[in-house]
């Protein structure tokens, strides 16, 4: 249980996927114009990262490892993730139209979010169990969500600020991300194992 808490805090805060590992930058900058759309995107990311972590663990341990085909990892993981995103989209469209309206447009974009494939590979390298992988995926998604929602709130205010013409758009967004990353650097001194009493 405490091991899971360690994974939760370290994946979400200390090694924040966006601001420390630098995974998922394109959607981070692309879908952060408003807090509302950023929230929709982050819900979809948390969901897909959790499910993808569990499914890729199963693929790794029940298909690739027994058949000695670890070299097919990249190919099989990305296919599983692409298929998974399609499947989730179809299930949500049938079962919950209101959720589909909220998440629908974000789901197809997630296949190319490198945080999803990234978490699958990081879980494999860390030798996590199935449960640990799922927690790590959820925590990574939550950390990404925290970062994008904070960033969207900053960008909403930034629209009122007089930014030089050459810095408008991407450049100022990147500099702002840098400052946000500096704030998250504070977590690098956070001793997670001691915090949860391990």
């Amino acid at each position, binding site marked *: 249980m405490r091991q899971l808490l360690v994974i939760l805090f370290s994946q979400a805060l200390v090694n924040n996927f966006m601001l420390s590992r*630098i995974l998922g*930058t*394109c959607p981070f900058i692309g879908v952060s114009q408003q807090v509302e759309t950023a929230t929709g995107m982050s819900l979809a990311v948390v969901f897909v990262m959790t499910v993808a972590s569990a499914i890729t663990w199963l693929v790794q341990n029940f298909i690739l490892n027994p058949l000695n085909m670890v*070299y097919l990892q990249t190919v099989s993981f*990305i296919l599983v993730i692409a298929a998974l995103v399609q499947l989730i989209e179809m299930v949500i469209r049938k079962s919950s139209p209101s959720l589909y309206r909220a998440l629908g447009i974000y789901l197809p974009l997630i*296949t190319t979010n490198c945080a999803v494939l990234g978490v699958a*590979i990081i879980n494999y390298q860390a030798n996590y169990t199935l449960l640990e992988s799922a927690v790590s995926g959820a925590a990574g998604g939550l950390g990404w969500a925290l970062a994008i929602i904070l960033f969207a709130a900053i960008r909403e205010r930034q629209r009122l600020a007089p930014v030089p013409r050459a*810095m408008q758009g991407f450049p100022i967004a990147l*500099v702002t991300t840098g400052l946000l990353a500096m704030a998250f650097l504070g977590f690098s001194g956070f001793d997670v194992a001691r915090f949860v009493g391990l």
Partner: protein
Amino acid sequence: MSPLTAFTNGIYKENPIFRLVLGLCPTIAVSLAVSNGIGMGLAATFVLVGSNLIISLLRKLIPSEIRIPCFIVVIATFVTIVDLTMEAYLPQLHQVLGVFVPLIVVNCIILARAEAFASKNGPGASIMDGLGMGLGFTLALAAISIIREPLGTGVIFAAPDLGFDGIRLFPAEYAASVVTQPVGGFIIFGLLLGLVNLITMKKNDKHGC
């Protein structure tokens, strides 16, 4: 489009990083040292050329409804080739680039070129487009890391795989290690992008368009 314009297009006019702003994660994460930047850039170039060639050859066979999964399989195959080759011959570079080598598969530049160029053009033009885009990516990575490497470590052109320790410009204790953190990456890339925008704007004002 002639092969030559397809080639030069990627280097400046549609530079994937500074003009199209695609593939940001590897850009910021690996631009810590010039050798890493060039290694990453060349790996991506190989994948781009290979996937562009195969996709352009198969463009009439791939049904348009399932083209994205087909493109991804082709791209992932080339990424696996690069990943295993790099692990065998350049182990230290592979270690430093880490998770970003398999992640070339989700680099938006590659899928974007497959979708926007290779699936509509012949193999010759597609190879040139892949080369141009890959070289543009490599040059942009080199440009960012040539600023970050000396500021962050005091050393320039260090390449551990080639047994070269680099040229020390100033002692390590004066180096600003924050530049090697993601913080420095985001801010320096943001400022460089602003500079490129400024230069483009000045040029456009001069031509009056």
